[in-house]
């Protein structure tokens, strides 16, 4: 049943994931030098320090945060709209198992897509002779921090989706505060960001499981 649930979540997220991948490619294409492929300029030293002083950071964030938000809401609220929870939740499994699986798949997808984007760019940069600085994995720390913050946004969005709310405004509150928090955390230094994110994430998770068990479907 775990396999069935995971496959289901993956298949349902496929559309969002595909869009995110395309967006990531489009947004980062310029950085990868897509317009220079095939020309000798492709392998020349660039005039920016990759990861350090180019705008990969902001482009990356531009795709990863919306992905997390959309995925979070889709996995929680879409089933409400379709009424398919009536098909899912009475099965002989704990309700927390179902929601845990959803969340793990969602977080996993955010992590993997973020990771792929980072690694892809890192590989591009690692082509010898294409960047003015040597490449160190530690240079990608900021981006990984973004991924961490994106997970917080994901959980906030999931909570938004699962919370019963009468007015659209209050419904979006968690995802908005998550976005705000993530924005703030992305400027904190390493360990602080990690702890702050973990705290907020724990809060959101508690909220998610509270509503998942308590609400009317």
């Amino acid at each position, binding site marked *: *049943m775990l*396999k*069935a649930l995971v496959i*289901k979540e993956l*298949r*349902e997220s496929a559309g969002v994931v595909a869009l995110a991948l395309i967006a990531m490619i489009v947004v980062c294409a310029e950085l990868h030098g897509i317009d220079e492929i095939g020309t000798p300029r492709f392998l020349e030293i660039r005039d920016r320090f990759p990861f350090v002083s180019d705008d990969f950071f902001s482009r990356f964030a531009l795709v990863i945060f919306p992905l997390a938000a959309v995925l979070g809401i889709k996995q929680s609220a879409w089933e409400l709209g*379709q*009424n*398919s*929870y*009536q*098909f899912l*939740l*009475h*099965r*002989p*499994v*704990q309700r927390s198992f179902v929601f845990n699986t959803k969340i793990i798949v969602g977080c996993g997808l955010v992590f993997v897509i973020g990771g792929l984007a980072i690694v892809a760019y890192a590989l591009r940069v690692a082509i010898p002779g294409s960047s003015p600085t040597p490449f160190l994995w530690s240079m990608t720390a900021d981006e990984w921090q973004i991924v961490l913050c994106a997970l917080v946004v994901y959980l906030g969005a999931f909570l938004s989706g699962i919370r019963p709310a009468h007015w659209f405004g209050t419904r979006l509150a968690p995802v908005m505060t998550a976005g705000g928090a993530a924005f703030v955390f992305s400027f904190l230094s390493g360990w602080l960001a990690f702890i702050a994110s973990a705290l907020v994430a724990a809060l959101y998770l508690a909220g998610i499981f509270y509503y998942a068990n*308590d609400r*009317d*479907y």
Partner: protein
Amino acid sequence: MSYAIQTERLTKHYGDRRVVDSLSLQVLTGSVYGLLGRNGAGKSTLIKMLMGMVRPDAGQAELLGQNIDNLSNCTRARIAYLAEGHPLYGWMSIDDAARFTRSFYPRWNDKLFSQIIEHFELSRCQKYRRLSRGQQAQVSLALAVAPEPELLILDDPTLGLDTVVRRDFLESLIQIIQRQGHTILFSSHILSDVERVAERVGVMVNGVLRVDCPTDTFREQVRKLVLEFSGHPPESPKIPGLVSCRQAGAGLELVLVGYDDAQREAVEALDPRSIAVLDLNLEDAFIEYTRGPRRSLPSFAMENDDAQSTRDQGAA
């Protein structure tokens, strides 16, 4: 005598409204119970509470002997649920849905599943959203029945289905009933379906279970009296068991529950020119009973051992 479903004073409010009001109900194992009620009477909410989709505000319930607050997974595997509108993931093909559902249950009768699918000439690779409503209903029923459940709870399973498809669905249901030991609770608006299939009926009015007795009893007990008067008919006659009273020309149409000597005397005391007592079929009995002014509704609930009693359940 064991009960597959037992509820005790189950209650749910939405704001001020009591959608389900102190509802106590028992369904004998192996029997078929039809839950009736007009739209908004609370049938769906009751069923959702049984299935854990909605939290009750008060009261308890047991399914297959276990409290619904902590149903073991083993017990849940013996219960099938078909929600209103037979929701399912539209993107799944019939085969996807079968494989998905199957993974949750230790018992899965694939032969039975295939039989139903083939009988309706469906192909396993068809996507659920491409099927007609009737086909979707059949697939949902097949998915519900393949794990060989002991208890089936169906929320208005024939809603929106045309006559022919409804008959198909009923036939499938009969086949399920014939296999021993299945208990079925279903809510419905189609009284003729209930007449065919249900041994016992419950009628909910504004969240209260006003009727809980064998199908025949309900039909026989609700009677329509047409009284003709030479002069002016009385305004609000006091007759025990009166459901409703309507002026019809120079006469009165009364709907009563039961017609014993006391009631007959009360009717004759009104001094009508003529009294005609009409028997009703199930649909008319239901209509007359639930159409009446809600305040004065006499309830009749019968114990499972057929002792006759009038129990007023819930707030009047």
